[in-house]
């Protein structure tokens, strides 16, 4: 039992570190992105990675409340991506 839980702890640490690294690299693409489509894509990926970080926090602490947080982050991320893309496409969000 101890080796299995130790492996789970190591996997949690690896997942935390790789998701944080992914966030930083998405921030790099957000800053240097040549077109605004790349910037929207980087923001979308950052939202998805933040959702993954919240899910990992829920596994780490064993608390059920993080489920609602991640569902809200998913919905807000989708709506904000569509709103940004629509603003660039049509010049207006709600016509």
């Amino acid at each position: 039992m101890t080796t299995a839980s130790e492996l789970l702890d190591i996997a949690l640490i690896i997942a935390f570190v790789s998701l944080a690294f992914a966030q930083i690299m998405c921030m790099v693409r957000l800053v240097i992105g040549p077109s605004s489509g790349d910037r929207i894509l980087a923001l979308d990926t950052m939202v998805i990675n933040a959702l993954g970080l919240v899910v990992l926090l829920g596994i780490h602490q064993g608390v059920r409340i993080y489920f609602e947080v991640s569902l809200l982050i998913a919905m807000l991320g989708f709506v904000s991506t569509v709103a940004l893309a629509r603003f660039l496409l049509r010049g207006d969000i709600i016509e």
Partner: protein
Amino acid sequence: MTLHIIATYASAAFLLIGAAFALVAVLGLLKFNDSMARLHAPTKVGTIGIGSLLVASMIQSFNTGNPSLHEVLIMAFLFVTAPISANFIAKVNIHQRSCDTPPAPKTDKAWSVLNTSAEDKALSETTDTAS
């Protein structure tokens, strides 16, 4: 080797798969040199990574004693909305012409595109008059 140990190993494996997919997605986002190519990496691979993280969370919730299947909701929502947002970002790329022209095809003469070139238009007019 009880069921608890197997579930813990499976949860750790799904966590590692999710972390690897997140790294691959961000590698594609950084290294590709075209906007459309950059679009392909994170929108597909990111959802698979998050899906395996959610599967690990479900297994772990069953393992620790308060089972829940609520993560299926997030997974379904992500799998539905990821192609829609990818389609919108691709529309933005086409609208701003930030993607390169497609590479030359190997065998055919040209890609079938909406705006036909002048010689193609002349050719179609001659065939129309001939027929």
